[in-house]
């Protein structure tokens, strides 16, 4: 059935909007955090999955966005949405700048560079504690003063929808094709007329802006902000989400985020063991199912009622596959 995934996505969206009122406070919180991770995982998969720019600084941008917004609101008493917008603007520019600076760096060097960037952000945020309150945590103004989290839920939903719309529009357009061309072979893409520099910078700017959006929302939802938002462990959790869902598609990355967040909550009794489990899942997924778990699952489900088609060629075989 063609377009089945669109109907399913619509049904999920409508269902989650309608059923919001019936959720209890706990699951409401879980859903909001899941949507926060959804934005992060999907924007990271634009960067890493589509453009092949494996950045480890994504959470640093989320953290920067959160702190920018929280501090601006605290100092100048500007409205919170304006603060979040300022965070997004700052991180879009900073992300573009990082993208520009790393133009000549390939795969692992880029990862090392962004890892360094995120460590510097984390160190500065935790050391300058007169300004940021350091590891004690910065208290932030709440976005809404309501008895329940319902307004946050709808806001998170709207932000996730916005992020997905931006990301899917990009990946469906010619730009998405260009980004994937960059990922596969930068020199060949340049030879075909893809403006390599422009698209690398663009991918960084957009993904970082969306990360800042998520970070800004998180700051004003949770009410307290610590530098550990930009920690390597949280970055790893986002990587796990994107990879398990399948980082080469935007919606599957969101699916991965939801799956992992729900798993994280249902296994809460196991504490630290959850992160170990996620590590194992990540390693096994990479080792045995690099396309993620959701895409093959989807193929399996939709393939049941249909006539047998020739199986798609395995990755790596075919005209573009046999690179040295």
């Amino acid at each position, binding site marked *: 059935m063609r377009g089945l995934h669109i109907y399913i996505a619509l049904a999920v969206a409508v269902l989650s909007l309608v059923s919001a009122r019936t959720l209890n406070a706990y699951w409401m919180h879980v859903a909001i955090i899941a949507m926060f991770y959804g934005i992060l995982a999907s924007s990271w998969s634009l960067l890493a999955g589509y453009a092949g720019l494996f950045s480890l600084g994504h959470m640093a941008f989320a953290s920067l966005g959160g702190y920018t917004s929280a501090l601006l609101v605290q100092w100048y008493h500007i409205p919170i949405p304006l603060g979040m917008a300022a965070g997004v603007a700052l991180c879009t520019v900073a992300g573009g700048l990082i993208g520009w600076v*790393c133009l*000549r760096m390939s795969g692992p*060097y880029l990862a090392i560079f962004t890892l*360094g960037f995120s*460590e*510097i952000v984390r*160190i500065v945020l935790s050391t300058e504690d007169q300004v940021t309150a350091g590891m004690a945590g910065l208290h932030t103004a709440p976005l809404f003063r309501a008895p329940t989290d319902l307004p946050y839920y709808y806001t998170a939903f709207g932000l996730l929808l916005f992020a997905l719309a931006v990301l899917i529009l990009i990946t469906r357009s010619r730009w998405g094709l260009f980004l994937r061309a960059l990922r596969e072979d930068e020199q060949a893409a340049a030879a075909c007329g893809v403006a390599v520099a422009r698209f690398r910078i663009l991918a960084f700017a957009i993904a970082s802006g969306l990360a800042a959006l998520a970070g800004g929302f998180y700051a004003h939802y949770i009410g307290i902000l610590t530098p550990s938002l930009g920690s390597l462990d949280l970055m790893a959790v986002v990587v796990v989400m994107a990879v398990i869902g399948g980082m080469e598609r935007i919606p599957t990355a969101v699916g991965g985020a939801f799956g992992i967040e729900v798993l994280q909550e249902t296994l809460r009794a196991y504490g*630290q063991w959850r992160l*170990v489990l996620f590590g194992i899942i990540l390693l096994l997924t990479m080792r045995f199912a690099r396309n993620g778990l959701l895409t093959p699952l989807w193929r399996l489900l939709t393939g049941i009622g249909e006539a047998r088609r020739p199986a798609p060629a395995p990755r790596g075989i075919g005209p573009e596959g046999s690179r040295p």
Partner: protein
Amino acid sequence: MDYLLIQVTNGAIIGIIYALIAVGVTIIFSILKIVNFAHGDLYMLGGYTAYYIVTFLGVPPLGALFLSMAGLFLFGIVLERLFLTPLYSDRTERKDEYGLIVTFGLAFFLRNTALIVFGPFPLRPPSFVPGVVHVGGLAVTNDRIVAGAVGVLLILALLYFMHRTIWGQALDAVSQSRDSAAIVGINPRRFNSLAFGVGAALAAAASALIAPIYSLSPGMGVLPNIQAYVIVILGGMGSVLGSIVAGILLGEAEGLFTAFFPDPTRALAYTNAFGVLVLMIALILRPTGLFGRRHVRME
């Protein structure tokens, strides 16, 4: 003046330890063509292994150091066999991305497992040789002297291995050209394992040497991992000698930075940031490292 001299001495010792870690990163890079993001966690694991060998088996610390090296050598080979073999298959696309995510995931897994198994509290193993040596106005603990001396010996042993033994030369041959090495009868697969094992063993040695000075904690590998990248980028990916020189230089630079930083309460935190900043600037100026060997590059 004395304070400065102490910083210079400490910087040299830390530099030697850094060099041990970085040499492992560079050997793994030149053979497997991946940047090992789990190196800092292998380092952490080596320190804990030595600690438990000392406390439970009662082996003297120096013996525990070598046992831990042997243990991590084997563990490295097991990890390489389990997770890195797709790197050698022609059917794997985008190998650098695979290596990145797998080693990054490995780091995450090892760090969190360590947090559960070893506990979050810092542990301090017994000294190699207790006591302090006074040279002029300078007081240096014996542990630092042992760390520096054993570190230098290990580096010399490694240089001997790389340049004067048939296995070391074969390792170099594989790093230059896998195919040509295979033609002259070197099995590249075996050397993948060897390189990863040697890298892990060197990290274990570094950790066991540093443990009595600072202490052990599950997160101790994160920053040395980045420092190792600083060194490898400065010294050139794939160059063992470059890593050694850059390691000692970085140790000294950090020691002096701490000494001269105006605000002593923040000096330590920014010393770490200083190393990272050096890394970022070096990468901006030379995206493949300052003295990289031409044949060693990503595929």
